[in-house]
């Protein structure tokens, strides 16, 4: 397949930094604006850019349906798992303080895991939604 050069080269250059930026936003939710939702959207937007330039079929090869669905559900499971773990360890749902010996470390761990779950779910959902829209005709 022949792709027009300018868009192909520039997007090839920009997609890896965009994905890295998404992960930066993911893990620096404590320090600045950001967190799971935003990171998920940015990560998905890198995929959407790939799909726009290189075609839906290639993008589907990179991120097949089972992969995005697994990502989506894994994020949800992680979120619920952290919440339920709080109950089992003697707190209430989503009680981070009981996750570790030291409540502060526990809270930190809990929030990081929850944000990661949110990010995974959001990016999976966004990519899935994009593919569903794009497969429509006209």
């Amino acid at each position, binding site marked *: *397949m*022949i*792709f*027009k050069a300018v*868009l*192909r080269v520039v997007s090839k250059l*920009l997609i890896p930094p*965009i994905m890295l*930026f998404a992960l930066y*936003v993911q893990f620096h939710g404590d*320090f*600045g*604006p*950001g967190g799971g939702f*935003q990171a998920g959207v*940015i990560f998905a*937007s890198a995929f*959407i*850019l790939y*799909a*726009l*330039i*290189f*075609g*839906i*079929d290639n993008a589907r090869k990179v991120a097949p349906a089972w992969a995005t669905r697994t990502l989506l559900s894994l994020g949800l499971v992680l979120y619920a798992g952290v919440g339920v773990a709080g109950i089992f360890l003697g707190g209430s749902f989503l009680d981070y303080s009981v996750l570790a010996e030291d409540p502060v470390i526990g809270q930190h761990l809990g929030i990081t895991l929850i944000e990661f779950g949110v990010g995974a779910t959001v990016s999976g959902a966004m990519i899935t939604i*994009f593919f569903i*829209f*794009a*497969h*429509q*005709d*006209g």
Partner: protein
Amino acid sequence: MFAGASAAILVTMALALFRAIRGPTIYDRILAVNAVGTLTVVLIAVHGFLAGRPAFLDIALVYALINFIATIAVTKYVKFSHLGHPSGEDERGDV
């Protein structure tokens, strides 16, 4: 001084928006909206300094990124009427 710059950017945005509303073609509108997006990036950055919170720069970077991808997506949508790979003349399959 940042307030002055913000005001200037807002006036500039209003001018660009005028073109976005006037048209006449869809491409004029996309061009104007893209310009408004760039100005928004600058406005967010300036506002971060105005509010003394340089963490706003992350948001500005995100906005620049979304502006880029959104403009390409809209351009592609306008050109092919859908976002997927065109079924027909596939050699023109990008924007």
